[in-house]
């Protein structure tokens, strides 16, 4: 049974990322005037349709989180375009060109769920204040409306009865409950687009699935799109319609989840897939070996960022492969 195939994925793009670049300058040492540039995100393209979830998968340090932070305007991007669908004017607008009102609109529709449930809630605030903070910031409704909205959303995320949670502090509830509060806080504004930065990786196995199911159900109900960041392909497969594989700041392969797992083409994707442990003692995994240094050299020697379409919405980076994989 496929869980999220039933979700309605519209034809319209909700967000388009075009050639997004984020470089960090690092000074070369105490006496050196040279500055080294770290290319954390080096020209990536993807788009997410309304109601769709895209998984962004890669090892730590590959630029997943930097992408997310640039997208939600936490850190300014170096260059590139991010276009967002404005539901009022009904067209795509670049976030560099919109006015203040457009920016407000954008922020209302964009939220982020963080990895660490222990750090992502202000320890000095009650859960009620935490959850209704977005409403306070955007001045939506009067106090009574906001309180009702909080109670409503607490029920939605399965923290019942809500009265038991309103005046608690984050340290008084468990990790799974905290992540539910994070989700409640995120969804209270009914955003269109939510970035999830490994929201379940610090939770226990038995709780993990209930949080993932909750997110899937809410996505269906509220028609939310996710950009789901994780290093675990098994989780990405469960959560996402499509998966993008990132390596050293670039997207090397992007396809429908099942297509990517059944038919991986890029050597890095193959390596990633072959390193996922299988919960079956009889299954013998074969590791697919890749020389990262060589791969990195090949990629950086080929600045061409074109992706090759191999059908079924499956795209692979087109750098020269020297026997690695397909030629066009």
């Amino acid at each position, binding site marked *: 049974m496929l869980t999220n195939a039933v979700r309605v994925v519209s034809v319209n793009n909700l967000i388009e990322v075009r050639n997004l670049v984020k470089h960090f300058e690092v000074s070369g040492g105490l006496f050196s005037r040279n500055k080294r540039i770290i290319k954390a995100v080096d020209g990536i393209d993807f788009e997410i349709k309304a109601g769709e979830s895209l998984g962004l998968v890669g090892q730590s340090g590959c630029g997943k989180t930097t992408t997310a932070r640039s997208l939600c305007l936490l850190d300014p991007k170096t260059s590139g375009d991010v276009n967002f669908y404005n539901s009022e004017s009904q067209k795509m607008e670049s976030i560099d060109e919109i006015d203040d009102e457009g920016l407000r609109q954008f922020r209302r529709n964009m939220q982020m769920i963080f990895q660490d449930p222990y750090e*992502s809630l202000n320890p000095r605030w009650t859960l009620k204040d935490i959850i209704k903070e977005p409403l306070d910031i955007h001045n939506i409704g009067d106090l009574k409306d906001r309180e009702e909205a909080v109670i409503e959303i607490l029920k939605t995320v399965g923290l019942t009865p809500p009265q038991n949670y309103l005046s608690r502090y984050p340290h008084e509830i468990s990790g799974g409950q905290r992540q539910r509060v994070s989700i409640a806080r995120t969804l209270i504004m009914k955003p269109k687009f939510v970035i999830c930065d490994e929201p379940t990786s610090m939770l226990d196995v038995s709780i993990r699935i209930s949080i993932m199911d909750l997110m899937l159900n809410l996505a269906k109900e509220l028609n939310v799109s996710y950009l789901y960041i994780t290093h675990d392909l098994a989780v990405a497969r469960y959560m996402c319609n499509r998966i993008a594989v990132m390596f050293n700041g670039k997207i090397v392969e992007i396809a429908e989840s099942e297509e990517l797992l059944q038919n991986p083409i890029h050597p890095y994707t193959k390596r990633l897939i072959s390193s996922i442990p299988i919960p079956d003692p009889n299954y013998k995994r074969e590791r697919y070996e890749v020389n990262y240094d060589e791969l990195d050299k090949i990629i950086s020697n080929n600045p061409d960022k074109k992706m090759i379409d191999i059908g079924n919405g499956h795209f692979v980076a087109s750098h020269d492969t020297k026997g690695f994989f397909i030629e066009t």
Partner: protein
Amino acid sequence: MDNLKNEKEIAKSLRRKAISKNWKLFKQSRLGMVGLIIVFFFFILSILQPILFLTGIWDQGTYNPVVGYVDQTQDFLVVECPKEFPTEKYEKRTDCPGRNEVNIKTLFYSDGEVGETIQLNLQPAPPSRDHILGTDSLGRDVFSQIMEGSQVAFLLGILSATLGVGISTLLGTIAAFFGGRVDAYLMRQSDLVLMLPTLPLLFIISAFAELKIWHLAVVLGTIGGLGGSVITIKSQALQVKVKPFVDSARITGGSNMKILFSHVLPNVAPLALLFMVFSVTGAIASESVLSFLGLLNIEMSWGLMIYLAQVEGYIFSGLKFWWLILPAGLSVTFLTGGFYLVGRGLDEVFNPRLRKR
């Protein structure tokens, strides 16, 4: 409405639980408890005095710490001490005048001939039933002075600590939050204040202006607030600033001011409170030093009591006039120590890594 009432009740019980848990943690620290008992003792002392006056148990004329006076007299035999020792009556120079005797050469204010018996004031008088810590050389009750002194210590300590920590919390958080030039300026400023030697600076200030107790509180608070604690509070604020909950407020579009006041400041507050308790100690000690040097325009304080004992020479007579020196000296020591120990206890509540279990 029922829900709302229910919610309030839950909130109340949760708050009570949190307080009792923190109290339990604090109680675990034995030093902290000792400190709290000491501070509490002095607090009782300081509020006891006005109560005693208001209820009329103590009469202002006798027990007022500044202008109170009580006539305590005793009969003395006037003698003339010989030039050479030993004589029949006295063996050494220190034996003259003996008990209930007075040397005629030290009789400046009253008349009398050798061999006569005259009535003289007995000041400073040792502890007695009426004056449990005796009186000073002007006939004022020492116990009442100690009580007055503890009022001064509390007022000064808490006033200057609050002011100082207020300043340093505000500046430290602003420096951390905005960074760049604001940060650089504030840090250089605090380096500068740290470089200034506090006591000599206070001498100079007191030379130009008459320092009253709240003047001193403001000066001490400002110097403390601009100095080293800014740096510590800044480093704490820097840690809070990068927490995901701050990011998530930013993503939603929260303004800098809102994030500063509702996210960063509350999370710096426990550290600030700790600083406050510790800086009370410094303020009380500075006050004692300044009034001991006679640089404060102040009616009564523990430092002043020791100052008076010193200028009148009682401090050099060993422990013969102990009630003029020890009560005031021990009060300063114990109250500053008490506040320090309370700080240590609070540290254990706020710093989970110091907890034993």
